[in-house]
């Protein structure tokens, strides 16, 4: 296990470095929002999802929907690392005539299961996939990541009601609780607390974890056995991994300038390619 964690930690550094390069080069936004969910995505894609079936678009594949689509650069990097598409395509991220837009587009590259980017859609789509698995007697599981700010949307709570009513215990939602949304701290804009009790009242199985602790993420996702859908509240840090950019809303919007990029790169040392 310890080896595995070291390996995943190393991968998460590689992914973060690549994200930094892509965002800086393309002058795009959302580095902070992507960094907060990198570790969760890595555990999902390297340990939990049946990636080969996803690659071959098998009807039995697990489904992953990135509901907070604005963080898709992290997903693109991981998909590319896992061989869903080649590096050349990855490097066209957010550039003229590229394949990869600023939000995930269904069909743009393998591995993108739904077009997201308008917040509050992904959970309903995931619930529909999970219900279909039940209807078709299939064993696959469905995962989605939502933002804490995204929980402002009424559609999230409609889907939350739906999922428990239909006993979708093959559905897991990870809530990336980085504490920020578009205009400020989530606690200042629209209070979500008591968040855990809200989801429990909606009859979900709820776990709370440190969203950057690989072992905790793994333990929360592995061998899920419950009659209910699962919500994992992952406490995360906006832009986790680059100390001088952590926990600041500015990095929802800005992309690093040349000197900031260089300073940020120092975090990764020589071993990270």
């Amino acid at each position: 296990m310890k080896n595995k964690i070291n390996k995943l930690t190393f991968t998460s550094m590689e992914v973060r470095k690549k994200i930094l390069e892509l965002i800086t080069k393309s002058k795009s936004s959302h580095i902070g929002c992507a960094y907060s969910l990198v570790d969760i995505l890595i555990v999902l894609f390297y340990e939990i999802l049946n990636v080969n079936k996803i690659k071959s678009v098998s009807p039995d594949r697990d489904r992953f929907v990135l509901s907070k689509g604005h963080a898709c650069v992290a997903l693109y990097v991981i998909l590319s690392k896992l061989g869903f598409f080649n590096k050349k395509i990855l490097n066209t991220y957010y550039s003229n005539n590229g394949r990869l837009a600023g939000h995930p587009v269904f069909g743009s590259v393998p591995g993108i299961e739904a077009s997201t980017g308008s917040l509050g859609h992904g959970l309903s789509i995931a619930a529909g996939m999970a219900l279909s698995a039940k209807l078709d007697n299939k064993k696959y599981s469905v995962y989605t990541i939502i933002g804490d700010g995204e929980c402002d949307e009424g559609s999230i709570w409609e889907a939350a009601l739906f999922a428990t009513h239909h006993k979708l215990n093959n559905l897991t939602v990870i809530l990336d609780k980085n504490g920020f949304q578009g205009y400020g701290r989530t606690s200042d804009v629209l209070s979500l607390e008591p968040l855990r009790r809200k989801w429990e009242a909606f009859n979900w199985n709820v776990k709370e974890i440190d969203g950057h602790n690989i072992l905790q993420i793994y333990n929360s996702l592995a061998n899920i056995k419950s009659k209910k859908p699962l919500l994992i509240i992952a406490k995360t840090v906006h832009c986790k991994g680059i100390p001088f950019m952590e926990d600041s809303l500015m990095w929802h919007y800005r992309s690093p300038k040349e000197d900031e990029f260089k300073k940020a790169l120092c975090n990764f040392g020589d071993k990270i390619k």
Partner: protein
Amino acid sequence: MRNSVVTSIKKIALKDKNVMLLSADMGFSVFEDFEKELPKQFLNVGISEANMVGVSAGMALSGKRCFLYTFAPFVSMRCFEQIRIDLCYQNLDVVLIGLGGGLTYAKEGSTHQSVEDIAIMRAIPNMKVFCPADPIEAEICIVEAYKKKGPTYIRIGKSGEPRLHDKKPKFSFGKSIHIFKGNDISIFSTGNMLKTAMDTAKILKDKGISVNLISMPSVKPIDYKAISFAASKTKCIFTIEEHSIVGGFGSAVLEALSKLSIMARIKCFGVNDCFVKYVGDQDFVRRKIGLDSDSISNKILKKLGI
């Protein structure tokens, strides 16, 4: 355009305490001054567009005048029924401001493109629809929307667009703005296509074609006079918009011709009836889909048989 919109709303809000600026979690680094100066007149409702529209209806029914702000697709499409019933059915004084109309945010994918908004907003009774072309037109639209009351949709771009008018043009609801006088053909442009339309007119002028160029920020109500003048005095009408050719500005001009029972030669330029899947900035995508001055002028020349 964004800054001139915020400045204009602030001017109004300073004079009228009932004016409120509502945001659906947008406007970081844009609204902070407004919020500081007029804390009671600013409200971030969170990422809940449908709720924002409903709340604004309740506030309008209680004497407030709300300006609602978020991305164009979210403020028009996400909460369409709330707009139709809560605002328009009750004919309430609420102004919707759609940031990033058309292909402004083309690179972000179709979720952030807004090329159906004019069509759906226009289809609702009582709703007025404005697409300003530059910061000055945007300012006038805000003031007009406040003065004339009723539900209004204002589709703007982002920040940093150049001013296209040297001085403040004369413009009000249902009127248009004359840019160039000409008597061969007419070009009607709405919103952020005006610069392209001006460039197109210049290219055509070099080919010896004189263009009657009109900017039409007021898509609904539309300027019937300008349309009937163009139909009777020039050979052909061309409309340009950064919006689907289904139901948008061009369709509004066609409907006006039908209502006026005028037969005219007309061609509409816009986004074809499909999702734009090119990744790239606004200018790049415009060129890809033929919404740039070179493509448009070529097509016009062809249509004229030149």
